[in-house]
Structures are given as structure tokens and as C-alpha cells.
């Protein structure tokens, strides 16, 4: 006796939205379950992650102390706040990176992803978003410990806290879109590493990761205004640490949205052509 195979349900807009929410929640939950399998590794990862900002922090607070308490008007307390918030923003910035596309293609993992009736981008966003939940939970005790050690000047108002809560996810999405779009290069070359390194260097200098942007020369600050990097790093930190007005906060969030859409558009175009070149190696 043959069982009738059910037809694929035709959903309305509301149904599609519910299905996408379900996909995101389930994928994120899977990521959380997976990360909890590696409790010890996660703690070591977080400890490793604070090494970089602590070095920057020690350097800048030392310079500030030597220059009478501030550098270019930025106090030691500002640096402490900047780099403590930096640790969270940096973690939010860890996404499915461009170099992983090479691995995904070479190891045949993309075959699995392409067989699924959902764009791999959705899976990546949802999976890493779930991972962020674990990261945020682990970050809280580290941030408290760093605050005791370095005495940050941090007194945000409610609007800043709300804007920060949105901006860190905006940062996550900006970086996701551009890294995914950059990853499309892997469909054309197996040696994209040099380009990825160049991008990383630009990002390091122009995002506020290495130093707060006001410490960079004016022309560098001018260039960085027209690139996505600072909107994924300096801006979210400043929403909490700086003294943005409400208008500046909203404008910044809108600029983030613009960069997310630009990144998405680049990805979608690149994806359309990239997938035609895919040779489905590795199985």
C-alpha cells in the first residue's frame, strides 16, 4: 500500500515569517547546545579573547597617566570603559568568516547546505547568533572582573543602553554580510587568503579595534566614515561609552542599517554568480 506523500504546504506571508522565526530559534538553540558541549574550551577562549584589549588598555592608561591623566582629551577611565566594552563588541563581531567559505567548499560541507531549502546565510546568521548568547553569558563575569581592575568611567543613560543593545546586533549583521560577501571570492580562487588578510588589516586600522578612532589622524577618520568598519566596532562601543545625543544614536543605527543592506545586496549578487561556478567537490 502506497502512502501518499504530503505536498509542501503553501504558506502565506505570516506563515513564512513564523517558519523563519522557527528556523532562527531552532538553529540558535542548536548552536547553544553545541557550545555547551565545550564548556572548558569556551572559558579558555574568552580568557584568550581579553588578552588583546588588556594589552591595549595597559598601554593607553600608562600613556594617559604619563601625560597628566589623558591622551587627546581621552581619560584613563575612558580607555578602561572603551576596552571593556570592546571585549563584548569584539565577540559580537565574530561571524562566519570569509576564510571559512574555503573550508566549507573544500570539505564538501556546502553540499549539505545547498541541499537545504534555505539560503546558507540564514543558517550562518542564526547559528552564530545562538553562539553569541553563550558568549554574552560568559562575558559578564569577565567584564565585572575587568571593571574592578581598571575602574572605567561609564555612566550611560537608558537611551544609550537601548541603542547599545541594538548596535551590537547591528555590528554583528554588518560584519556577517561583508564577511559572507567576501567569502564568495572562494568560488573564484582557492587562494583568497591574501585578500582576506588585507581586509582584516583595513578593518583593524579603520574600525577602532586597534585604537579609538579620535586618536587616528583626521584623514583616516574621514576615510573611515565612508567605510563599514567603524559602524561594526567604534560606533557600538561609543553608544555606551561616548556622549552621543539621541539624534546621533538614531542616525548611527540608521547608518548601520544602511551598511547591512549594502552588504546583503553585495552578497546576493555575488551568490547568484558564485553558485554557478560551484564544482561540488569533496563528495
Amino acid at each position, binding site marked *: *500500500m*502506497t*502512502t*501518499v*506523500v*504530503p505536498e*509542501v*504546504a503553501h*504558506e502565506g506571508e505570516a506563515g513564512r515569517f513564523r*517558519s523563519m522565526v*522557527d*528556523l532562527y*530559534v*531552532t*538553529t540558535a538553540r*542548536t548552536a547553544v*547546545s*553545541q557550545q555547551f*558541549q*565545550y564548556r572548558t574550551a569556551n572559558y579558555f577562549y574568552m580568557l584568550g579573547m581579553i588578552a588583546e584589549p588588556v594589552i591595549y588598555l595597559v598601554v593607553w592608561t600608562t600613556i594617559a597617566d604619563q601625560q597628566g591623566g589623558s591622551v587627546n582629551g581621552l581619560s584613563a577611565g575612558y580607555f578602561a570603559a572603551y576596552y571593556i566594552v570592546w571585549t563584548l563588541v569584539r565577540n559580537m563581531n565574530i561571524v562566519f568568516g570569509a576564510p571559512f567559505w574555503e573550508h566549507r567548499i573544500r570539505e*564538501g560541507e556546502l*553540499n*549539505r547546505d*545547498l*541541499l*537545504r*531549502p*534555505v539560503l546558507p546565510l540564514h*543558517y550562518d546568521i542564526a547559528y552564530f547568533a545562538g553562539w553569541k548568547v553563550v558568549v554574552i553569558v560568559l562575558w559578564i563575569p569577565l567584564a565585572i572582573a575587568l571593571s574592578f581592575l581598571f575602574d572605567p568611567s561609564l555612566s550611560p543613560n537608558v537611551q544609550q543602553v537601548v541603542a547599545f543593545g541594538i548596535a551590537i546586533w547591528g555590528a554583528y549583521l554588518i560584519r556577517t554580510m561583508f564577511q559572507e560577501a567576501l567569502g564568495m571570492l572562494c568560488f573564484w580562487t582557492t587562494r583568497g587568503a591574501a585578500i582576506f588578510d588585507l581586509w582584516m588589516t583595513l578593518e583593524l586600522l579603520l574600525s577602532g579595534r586597534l585604537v579609538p578612532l579620535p586618536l587616528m589622524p583626521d584623514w583616516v577618520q574621514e576615510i573611515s566614515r565612508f567605510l563599514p568598519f567603524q559602524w561594526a566596532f567604534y560606533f557600538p562601543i561609543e553608544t555606551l561609552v561616548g556622549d552621543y545625543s539621541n539624534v546621533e544614536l538614531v542616525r548611527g543605527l540608521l547608518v548601520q542599517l544602511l551598511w547591512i543592506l549594502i552588504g546583503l545586496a553585495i552578497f546576493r549578487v555575488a551568490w547568484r554568480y558564485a*553558485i*554557478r*561556478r*560551484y*564544482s*561540488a567537490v569533496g*563528495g
Partner: protein
Amino acid sequence: MSEHAVHVDGLVKVFDVPEREAGLAAAAKGLVRRKTREVRAVDEISFTVDPGEVVGFLGPNGAGKTTTLKMLSGLLYPSGGVARVLGFEPSKRQRGFLSRITLVMGNRNQLQWDLPALDSYELNRAIYRIPRERFAPTRDELIELLDIGDLVRKPVRQLSLGERMKAEIVGALLHQPQVLFLDEPTIGLDVTMQKRIRTFVADYNERYGATVLLTSHYMADVEALCKRVVVIHHGRILYDGPLAGLADQFAAYKTIGVALENGHTDLSRYGEVIHTDGDWITLRVPKAETSSVTARLLTEEHVLDLNVEDPPIEDVIELVFAQERPE
């Protein structure tokens, strides 16, 4: 809309493969000018598969089987020709298409490595938008059919190859696909496990009326599941028809098994003696001479038992695979 489940017409896939000589000089030359060679992995193949049919897709390594399956499942973009599966153009990778097919590759892990298979199944539920009221019974039924009830709660990394394969198959069928592309689903498994999976595929085909296109190097898989086979070699189809008809087309000989009253006798004058097992002697004779040799044996020897058979399917396939690429 095509009434065939799978419709392939003049399908082509060409890869540009970079190549260079060994050594530093060749590497330096490659910096300036890269040499590539065009490889026609699939070369204008055409066939159709009806709904509910189970077809064996045979060919040696590199024949183009997997490339064809990848084009039919939407992983690869064809270089030319037409492919339609359930009326969809696979390369468009539409949701309706991907929700109705599955591709199982025997050497690939589709499940989350560190989590129990149940978690991956839940993820597939969300990905394929399977209604919850349908998901749980389907999952439980598949788990029961493959007898992996006690395995799906263990992290996948702790499962043996065979156990993992069964868990993979459950994951690949949760959305109840109408077309199954199975690429070496029993590779590396022991005989018992192979048999289990064969039985399962037959059950699934019968229960859901699903269309199955199967590649396997194990002829037991093909003999057990497929009445029809498509043989591909050097990217071209050499044969498309009943499994039983392969020998007629490709084997130039038959085997005659004979047991004589007087035991061991030299039968080499009748044909090539290829095997002796106790009193049972197996001869290989040219196909055209089968009747005359059989008649001579029956009249000249004291025959207790005799049968005429096509050569084993493995031997026939070996003959097919040995064919040179037609120019």
C-alpha cells in the same frame, strides 16, 4: 509538466581543470599563464525515470554518476542540456524542489557531529518547515524502521559508521522526499548493515511510492533494489534497460555448470574450465556456441545435472567498465 519523475535530455557538465607539469619552472610559468584542461564529466546523457521507479546508476569511478546526481539535486549547474526533477529545474534550487528531494552520500556526514541525532532532526524540522504533527510520527516511524531507537540520543561522533549511516538516512528522509538520490549509501558498511539499508530503501519505496536513483559499487544493492539500470562510462550512457539484459548486450559468453556421473573428467574440449567445486564443473563458452556445446555435453557425457547461466553480474559490469571511451 513532465510526467516523468526525472527527465534528462542531453545533459552536459564540463569542468575546467587546472594542470601543470611538476617542478619549480612549471610552477613559475603558472604564475604568468595558467593552463587548464576541459573535462567533460557528463557528456550529453539522456534518460527518464518514472515516478516510483528504482533505477541503478552504474559506472566505474569517475564515470560521471555522482556529477549527474549532483546536477539532478541542484548542487551543480549544468553546462548544457536539460534536467527536470518533479517538473522543477534543479539548478534553480527552488524551495518546492529542495523540499521534495534528498541526496544521501555514503561518505558524508550531514548531522551535527557533537550533538545527538535527535537535535539534528529537530533542526531539519525547522529547515524543511515540517508541521510538528507530521514530524514526530515520521521521525519515530523511520527510527523504528531502521532500529536506531537507542542511538539517536548519543552524540553522533560516538556512533559507528553503520549506525551513523542509519541515523543519516533518517535525517535525510524526515521531510518525506518524493525523489531519493542515493550515492553509495552502503559504502564501507558490513554485510548485515548493507542488507538492512537495502531492505529499508525497498520498504520506503513501497510505502511512499518514492522514486529512487541509486549508485553503488556493491552489485548486491543493485540486484536487490533495481529492475532497471543505467550504465554510464566516460560521461556517456552505455546501457539503459533491465538489469537482466546487461549480460545479453555486453557478455560475449555464458557459463555452463555441469555435474557428471563419472565425477572429474577433462571438459576443456567443450570450453574454458573456470571453476571446479567437488563434482560441479563450470565452463565458459562463447554465447553463440552455448546451444551446440550443451547438446554435445548431453549426448557425449553422462550428465547428472546441467544449467546454463549468464555470467555473474559483477563480471558483466567489469566487462562494461573495461570499454574504451568512444571517440
